């Protein structure tokens, strides 16, 4: 497989990249880790005239904790997230999520920014980005814009980023005390993408009631979604198996689930409900055994 011809640009700063983005015309693609884009180029599914490689921009590679947020530059690779001491200290949950993406070689190159802009319906990160209530910082020539996770995934392969913008960083609020988190993924036998992936993040009160819960689902719909109806049935309650089971029945609400050659729509609905239930059960098991995520500093 051989890509069609294009010109290659490697700017050293975000400003330079934005300049190129506006001057090069319409047929431009940003190159992050390249593990969705390069296969698409090889299959000639996309034939841009210009590629702008973001690898030379140091500002896109931040990994830091600032103001109770984990800040990840868009060019942070999955392996960097998986192995970063900073992430491990602030949000070890995310290390686990990153470690479940694709395979080690792909994790060495694929980036969180690339994944979120590509918005593949079966990608792993989106479920957690929703459940973590992250913010995406988009930079354009007019300045920067913050997009909340709930507004980010707009449809099949569509994220809320404008044509001449660059996703610069992802800001993930650190979790409140007594919060447990699970990402449960059914790996596609062939592609290793998520058939269904459920991120469940639950904050419990001292008497083990659900103070706050966010559930993100990837894989089954046209894009990742929050399981709002499930969440509503959980807040304020003790999350025993019965409550979780009952609430999980609503896991597919608001998802447009289509069958494919591997799983029928019915299969996916069943898997989605099962995975939501199991992810919640596992999260509650973590909570009950005191295995909470690290806590943000008091404001």
């Amino acid at each position, binding site marked *: 497989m051989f890509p069609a011809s294009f010109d290659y640009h490697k700017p050293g700063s975000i400003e330079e990249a934005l300049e190129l983005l506006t001057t090069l015309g319409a047929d431009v693609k940003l190159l992050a880790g390249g593990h969705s884009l390069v296969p698409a180029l090889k299959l000639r599914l996309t034939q841009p005239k210009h590629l702008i490689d973001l690898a030379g921009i140091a500002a896109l590679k931040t990994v830091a904790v600032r103001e109770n947020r984990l800040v990840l530059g868009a060019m942070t690779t999955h392996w960097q997230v998986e192995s970063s001491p900073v992430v491990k200290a602030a949000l070890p949950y995310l290390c686990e999520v990153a470690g479940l993406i694709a395979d080690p070689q792909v994790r060495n*190159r694929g980036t969180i920014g690339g994944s979120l802009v590509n918005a593949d319906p079966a990608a792993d990160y989106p479920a957690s980005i929703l459940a973590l209530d992250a913010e995406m910082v988009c930079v354009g020539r007019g300045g920067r814009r913050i997009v909340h996770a709930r507004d980010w995934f707009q449809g099949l392969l569509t994220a809320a980023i404008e044509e001449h913008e660059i996703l610069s960083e992802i800001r993930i609020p650190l979790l409140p005390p007594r919060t447990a988190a699970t990402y449960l993924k059914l790996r596609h036998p062939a592609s290793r993408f998520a058939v269904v992936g459920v991120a469940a993040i639950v904050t419990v009160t001292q008497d083990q009631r659900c103070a706050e819960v966010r559930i993100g689902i990837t894989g089954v719909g046209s894009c990742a979604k929050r399981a709002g109806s499930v969440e509503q049935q959980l807040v304020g309650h003790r999350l025993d198996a019965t409550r979780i089971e009952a609430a999980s029945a609503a896991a597919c609400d608001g998802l447009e689930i289509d069958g494919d050659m591997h799983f029928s729509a019915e299969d996916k609905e069943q898997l989605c409900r099962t995975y939501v239930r199991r992810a919640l059960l596992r999260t509650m098991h973590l909570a009950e055994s005191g295995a909470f995520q690290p806590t943000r500093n008091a404001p």
Partner: protein
Amino acid sequence: MKRTISVTVNGKVRRESVEPRLLLVHFLRDVLRLTGTHVGCDTSQCGACTVSMNGLAVKSCTILAVQADGAEITTIEGLARDGALHPIQAAFREHHGLQCGFCTPGMIMAAKQLLERYPAPTIEQIRDQLDGNICRCTGYHGIIKAIEAAARAMAEKGQAPTTGS
């Protein structure tokens, strides 16, 4: 428009003028004539093209040669030192870790990173870390045995795995 890149491959600096669309795997195979790195799929699944780039195992079919400008790359041809096989290579032979040999270079390069990250891996870790490499011949049994044996051999020799290339 061609671009000149400078890549250190198996310790040698190679300066070449390449089309931006040239994949790293074709740069290695067709330009440098290092044909030990193979192509087995179009979609980054099979891992036959795995090489080490700046100390990380990568699929060279999913990287443009221009992205490797300034990088240090080790291919299967660069693994043996002064005629002596790398312990992983020797273990693949000893434990029947290959049949047709086509996936083998990529498998060995993936195993190299695996042992750098997990010097004393469990079988589960070995299986998990090989998820980016497909072998159609062996059923993986000999490969897993070889990697376990290589880990022991490297530990005995005190050959602390390096993270560099």
